[in-house]
């Protein structure tokens, strides 16, 4: 399972990820055209700030997805890659998913009355937010690989201390 891993100490709050997320979900994948759309594309991740910490908050595609469990029409479903996706035509705008999501990353598209959430950019190998981050605060990593990295890091720190 691939994760989008956020290194909060690297985020400058430039919002490039938000812009590129919108562009990726625009009719023509182009900024100049995107801002002219009648209903401009919505962002699916959010830069938030608490004190000095700035970070993008985004969908984790949880294995036990509260949003999916709360969706009464079956608009939210899991695809073959494990990504929680949404079918526009089934969404009735009840916002149960918004209430259920513990991360607050399902948003409301008030123009078209449907919920919007991260779809991991199905047309791209690397999601637009990850590809665009100028400081590499966002990384696409394998969950198992990340935990291995962590274990290695602990060991490395321990051995440096021993020396």
């Amino acid at each position, binding site marked *: 399972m691939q994760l989008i891993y956020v290194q909060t100490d690297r985020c400058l709050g*430039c*919002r*490039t990820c938000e*812009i*590129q997320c*919108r*562009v990726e979900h625009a009719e023509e994948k182009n*900024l*100049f055209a*995107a*801002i002219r759309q009648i209903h*401009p*594309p*919505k*962002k699916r991740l959010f830069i938030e700030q608490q004190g000095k910490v700035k970070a993008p908050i985004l969908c984790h595609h949880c294995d036990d997805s509260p949003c999916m469990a709360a969706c009464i029409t079956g608009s939210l479903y899991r695809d073959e890659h494990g990504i929680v996706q949404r079918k526009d035509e089934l969404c009735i705008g009840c916002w149960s998913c918004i209430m259920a999501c513990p991360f607050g990353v399902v948003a409301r598209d008030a123009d078209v009355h449907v919920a919007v959430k991260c779809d991991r950019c199905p047309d791209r190998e690397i999601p637009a937010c990850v*590809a*665009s981050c*100028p400081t590499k605060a966002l990384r696409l990593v394998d969950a198992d690989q990340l935990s291995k990295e962590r274990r290695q890091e602990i060991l490395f720190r321990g051995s440096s201390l021993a020396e």
Partner: protein
Amino acid sequence: MKCSIDPAVTEVLNNHKGGNKLKTAWDRYEAQQPQCGFGELGVCCRHCMQGPCRIDPFGEGPDRGICGATADTIVARGVARAVAGGTASHSGHALHIAHVLKKMLAGKTPDYAIKDEVKLKAVAGRCGIAIEGRSSKEIAQDLVEKALSEFGDKGEALTWAATTVTKARLETFSKLGIVPTSIDGTIAEVMHRTTYGVDADPVNILLGALKCAVADYTACHLATDLSDILFGTPQPVVSKANLGVLKEDAVNIALHGHNPLLSDIIAQVASEPEMIAEAQAAGAAGGLNVVGICCTGNEIMMRHGIPLATSSISQEVAIMTGAIDAMVVDYQCIMPAIATAAECFHTKVITTMPIAKMPGAEHIAFSDENAVECARAILRQGIERFKSRNPDKVCIPQKSSTAIAGFSAEAIVAALAKVNADDPLKPLIDNIVAGNIRGICLFAGCNTVKVPQDHNYIEMVKKLLAENVLILATGCASSAYARHGFMTSEATIRYAGKGLAAVLTVIGEAAGLGGPLPPVLHMGSCVDNPRAVDVAVAIANKLGVDVSQLPVVASAPEAVTEKAVAIGTWAVAGGLPTHLGVVPPVLGSKLVTEVLTSTVKDLLGGYFIVEPDPAKAAVALLTVIDERRAGLGL
């Protein structure tokens, strides 16, 4: 990513011996992707320390900065400051020449002289300075004082603006309140009105930008006039362009930048037998080979026939040939990256101006009071460096094109006078009326990494020439057409439509070229754009109309710099529909976009046409040309 359509540049990029750690502007462009969307739209503001502020272009987040400025205000301020930046560059360039002229008249710069008395008298006469019975020195003294008064607070319309546009245009400028009374004062005014808490009205700010652009035009015109007086008005000259002009067996000195004050002297000194002998003594059988890059290249090509190596965007590529012993720079469009590229080779980068130094380069202060000695010292650095050239790292593409350059307004009129001595403009106007010349397009501006180098220039020019549009070119547009062989008689036969080819053949043969005039006329460096205005104004005055009615358009299809923004803006102010092939950072404001591409047309006749697709851009320009022809009843 395709970097360039120039075969010589491409050959060096693919085969250079600088190692794989050597990065170019195109690599750095890729590393910058994606570029900041707020910046691309012009909706970020850093004019105060409460910021930075950004407007959400999607209308969900903030619609105002902390001070309350909207996207319209922020975008307009950005445009105005870009124009001011460009104007400051041209002001500095022009003032530098005026200072040297003044010092020369006081006997302090013995290496400079009045080279073109005819031009001196023509300019002085136009500026209202008495000529009859006076020596050149006396006239020049009055002229230089007049010139210097343009920079400070003159208290009246700038002479170089008021005397070089049509009467109707000056009235239009006056009505809009955009007649500058000081070059530097207008730059300062833009900085003032765009600072924290001054002008918030986007339209008023844009009028300020237009006024500053007129000041830029003034500075450019003044610079060109004084350069011609000091170094001679360009006349047609046959030279060569592209990296194939570098010589394996010679000391190759590349002169890069803009102002002829330095480059013209080096060009003169490089032909001294003693200097050539020094180069030969260092082992360079071919002696000294001076080549030009960017607009310095245009200046010395026009006046001395010195070959042009390449344009601004490929300045690093020139170093990557491994054959340049010294690259000597003054100011503007000099990428700091050249010092890094030079680390991979033996090339010495020499900066010369107190305001333009660079980490990794050697600084040799150029003194105009001791110009020739300075020039010799600089050349000697190159000769010394030749000894450490590594032949294994040399990669000179055997590619260059012949180019006829040097079509100043005076040279064009002189060529036309060979057809009709009493009324030189008549053949030009008759052929415009008859449709043999459907219109005129001035190509200006730069090369950008955002477009494969030269792609837009070449695509557009082929279409326009086939439709009988006469092409004028300046700056790196000149370079593109010179390198791609569009400045030859053969190019007329190959690319020009029937009507245009016939006209160019008649003029070329009358002028003794033994063939047609080139279909693209090299009018000089980017500061020389007013040369094209002079031609348009002469035609308009003769026809008793304004420039905004003529079938004349401009295009900067690969624009980069703030100078290009300033020039483009004064082209619009002057009444020319002006195409931009790169989207400028204004789309974040619907109002500013609307004003610059449409509303301004009603006020000035000129307006911006933004079209990245060169084929569509050519069609758009042809449509405008036809509209204007129809307006004149043609």
